[in-house]
């Protein structure tokens, strides 16, 4: 079903014919999404949009939203557009692709913030920030993602959150085209005073659009934001060495990567607390476990050796030293220490050594070897290899998510979630990775003290049986996550009735009735596509 000619013409008049399309193949390239298969009964296609529009300015976005109101169309924007949540969840909506709005408008070197548009990605912002001795928080989803989207619309934490906070913590002023077509400029920006504060006048209105999860595109469009930046006492351009794809970075002495390990979860938890209490670490994350506890060492070997492929996996898995390394990495995480000065790095390293001594931990020797350390360093600082979590067959999902205090790992849950997934892995429908691919967890909030894990379910989206197995594992995990107070964005995989039941079943369903009230006040014409969750009265 096409949108009306009048509506299409009106949209075309705003952005020009070269920036709007209703060509079915083009619309399908937008409907095609990672994880769509879970929602769309195996299909990779989300509901097809009525048209895709590429706005070039805030004014164009505003005009498009007003046209959507006039013609009773749903409207949803995405930045880099990765994941099913970027696509409208209703047919015939107007998909806004923000990629023409890709400028870094300002880097305030002194006050350490950048003003960016939606299609600036982590990699480009980081590159520009490093030129002036600064860095940007990189969300866990990696360098190809939009810091604006992370700060306004989705979750926004990452491996560096311990030092650099999460996207929403870093959000200063924002420019928001509300679903009414009006523009709200939050904080100091609204008074025409610049971007340095996102709060006030009085209450902080950004609370409306960003909680633990953002509105996922369901409540207007963000066209510019300011995000805080952080110190980078390293080279202004990262010196990259090595052969594709095994690039590495050899950095100065004040920047170091280690993989730390413990033989018990208690030791691990104690160390995380001590890191929290001693303000050390620039990046700290249980990263490489994402390949699975039994496979991680072998996979790292493959990834850092350009002569190897996944075909070498089985042979490597048989090697005692590889098995030993995987076992050693079972309760481990990666940490990057960055010293602002030589004394700082020396101090941090000493503190880390003492923490390890006090908690029975150690630095894994194999990960200190220069090639591996350089690769790890590059991985962690740039999050440029993030999509290796698709390396096995192209599918991953992180439904088995849970957050909490550092001692969550001692609760028995790590083993439970491992066993729970291992069961599915043994059946063959998902990758049999050992069970624990629980990435995350050293500091998911600025300063640390709060951890979140995502146990990856790795599957083949090109194989219907594997998709079905992953979906079943996901449902199983989803229940447990909800019970634990998590639950993330699983609602995207459900029909409206199921979503309502999910919300009603929460310990405090009223929060979604509040969202309903907010929705009525801020989106009275129903332009949003339903990604802002509301519980019907």
């Amino acid at each position: 079903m096409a949108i009306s000619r009048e509506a299409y013409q009106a949209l075309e008049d705003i952005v020009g014919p070269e920036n709007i399309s209703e060509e079915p193949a083009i619309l399908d390239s937008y409907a095609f999404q990672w994880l769509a298969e879970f929602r769309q009964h195996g299909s990779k296609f989300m509901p097809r949009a009525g048209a895709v529009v590429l706005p070039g300015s805030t004014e164009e976005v505003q005009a498009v939203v007003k046209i959507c109101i006039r013609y009773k169309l749903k409207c949803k924007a995405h930045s880099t557009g990765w994941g099913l949540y970027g696509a409208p969840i209703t047919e015939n909506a107007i998909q806004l692709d923000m990629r023409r709005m890709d400028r870094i408008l300002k880097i305030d070197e002194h006050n350490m913030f950048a003003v960016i548009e939606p299609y600036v990605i982590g990699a480009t912002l980081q590159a520009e920030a490093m030129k002036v001795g600064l860095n940007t928080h990189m969300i866990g989803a990696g360098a190809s993602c939009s810091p604006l989207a992370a700060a306004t619309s989705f979750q926004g934490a990452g491996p560096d959150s311990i030092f650099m906070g999460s996207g929403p913590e870093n959000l200063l002023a924002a420019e928001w085209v509300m679903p009414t077509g009006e523009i709200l400029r939050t904080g100091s920006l609204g008074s025409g005073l610049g971007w340095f504060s996102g709060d006030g006048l009085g209450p902080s209105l950004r609370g409306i659009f960003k909680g633990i999860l953002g509105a996922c595109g369901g409540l207007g469009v963000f066209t510019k934001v300011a995000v805080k930046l952080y110190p980078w006492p390293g080279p202004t351009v990262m010196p990259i060495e090595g052969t594709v794809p095994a690039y590495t970075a050899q950095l100065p002495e004040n920047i170091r990567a280690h993989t730390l390990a413990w033989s018990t979860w208690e030791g691990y938890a104690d160390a995380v607390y001590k890191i929290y209490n001693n303000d050390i670490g620039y990046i700290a994350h249980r990263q490489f476990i994402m390949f699975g506890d039994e496979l991680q060492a072998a996979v790292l070997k493959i990834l850092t050796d350009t002569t190897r492929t996944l075909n070498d996996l089985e042979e490597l898995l048989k090697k005692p030293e590889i098995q030993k390394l995987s076992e050693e990495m079972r309760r481990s995480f990666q940490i990057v220490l960055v010293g602002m000065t030589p004394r700082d790095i020396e101090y941090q390293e000493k503190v880390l050594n003492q923490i390890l001594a006090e908690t029975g931990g150690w630095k894994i020797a194999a990960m200190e070897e220069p090639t591996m350390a350089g690769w790890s360093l590059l991985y962690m600082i740039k999050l440029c290899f993030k999509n290796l979590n698709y390396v096995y067959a192209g599918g991953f999902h992180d439904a088995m998510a849970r957050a909490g205090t550092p001692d969550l790992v001692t609760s028995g849950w790590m083993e439970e979630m491992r066993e729970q997934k291992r069961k599915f892995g043994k059946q063959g429908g998902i990758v049999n990775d050992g069970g624990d691919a629980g990435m995350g967890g050293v500091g998911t909030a600025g300063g640390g003290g709060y951890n979140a894990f995502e146990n990856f379910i790795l599957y083949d989206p090109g194989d219907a049986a594997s998709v079905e197995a992953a979906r079943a594992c996901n449902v199983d995990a989803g229940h447990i996550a909800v019970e634990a107070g998590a639950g993330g964005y699983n609602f995207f995989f459900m029909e409206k009735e199921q979503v309502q039941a999910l919300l009603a079943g929460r310990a405090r369903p009223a929060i979604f009735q509040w969202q309903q009230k907010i929705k009525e006040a801020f989106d009275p014409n129903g332009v949003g596509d339903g990604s802002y969750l509301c519980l019907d009265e």
Partner: protein
Amino acid sequence: MGEKKEELIKIVGDNNVLDDPETLDSYSSDYSFVPSRKPWFVVKARNADEVQRIVEWANRTVTPLVPVSSGPPHFRGDTVPSEGGAVIVDLSEMKRIITIDGKNRMTIVEPGVTYSQLQPELAKEGLRLSMPLLPRRNKSVAASLIEREPTLIPKYRWLSADPLRCLEIVWGNGDKMMTGEAGNFASIEAAWKRYFALLNPRGPAQVDYYRLVQAAQGTMGIVTWTALRCEKLPKVQKLFLVPAKRLDELLDFAYRLLRFRFGDEFLFLNSFNLACILGEVADVIKALRDELPRWVLILSLSGRDILPEEKVEFLEKDIADIAQQFGLRLISSVPGASSGRVLEAILNPSKEPYWKLGYKGGCQDIFFLTTLNRTPEFVRTMYSVAEAQGYPASDIGIYIQPVHQGASCHCEFSLPYDRSGQVEVTKMQGLFTEASEQLLKEGAFFSRPYGFWADMAYNKDTQTTMVLKKVKDIFDPNHVMNAGKLCF
């Protein structure tokens, strides 16, 4: 009126509904220029259920409520009723420290808990909270943080309202909600059981509710407990003073340290403010003011857990090196002040009377957010308005506090005056108004718009005003909460 009183007595008990003239008088005005107005009653709530029932009652009877958590004196006009027939909801008796979780460095406190009450208890667990600058002894911790008052350690201010984390709110319509990660659970205990220490303030779900009560002056609802993230109590702490003749001499140095996140307590005071902090009475303050360096950057270095001495030692060396690059000196005493005395002062609530009142008995503060690089301009503006109005520049206290890890800073001018003489009051009112307007015109962001600043600030941002009204209509549909404040 009698019926109303009866209803209130039913909720909080006979002793907690006050309407004697003396009590009502004490809530009818404060040190601000907000017109005085007597409330009908003062009710002292003792727990969240009572608060909720009071708010429900106010909705039924459309009675204005004015929440108050801190003891007097008040300075901002936010606790003075703007409408007739208001009921003050005094939360200062809600003084429970619900928990101190040493391991996770969290504490949960009711709104009546003060810094002077809380800090010693935290210290027993090896913790402390980053303080605002010498709060009153009876200042509510919750109120201070909910109003986004600055605290002294910018590096721990990940969020603009840090260390504020989860809250329990009774909204203006009477609904009670736990915010942040607590909001996913039926109770605090249920959250703890699932390994949530109430550290994550975001949400629940897709709204950051706790942001909507921030700097709201009680217009959205009443907060009945706050979860706060604490710091480890330093084992070693050294304070340094970096003196300068002009503020701008300190800024590049300060920016470098803020970037490196070096230093804990980190604030700029001019000589008059430091004198007020260290001195007791006007003569002493005057003498100190003249002796002290014109500007001081106060910088504390702390070692908290592992190798605390080494940490302070390396920081001291590094910062001294950096100071040298900028032609500055990191020293432990300046004429008129030693680091020990300053440290003692800033780590504690104010002496009595409140430190801003020692000089002349009254004080008006003008404060706003800006960026550090712009502060010298605002200082010049303040001086020039003061000069034009015949107010001595040497009596202006200046406090500049980087917040949100240095992304912005709180800039505060304190203007002492004698409240007993009408002429001086009128002159101060003129200076206060003129300076506020001039600063606004030059780009000061009155992010917490108290009193007459509200009209001034909201007129400059009509879209925020419109949206805020929408939010107010959602959470306080009958507008019972502190009517007449902000833009409501």
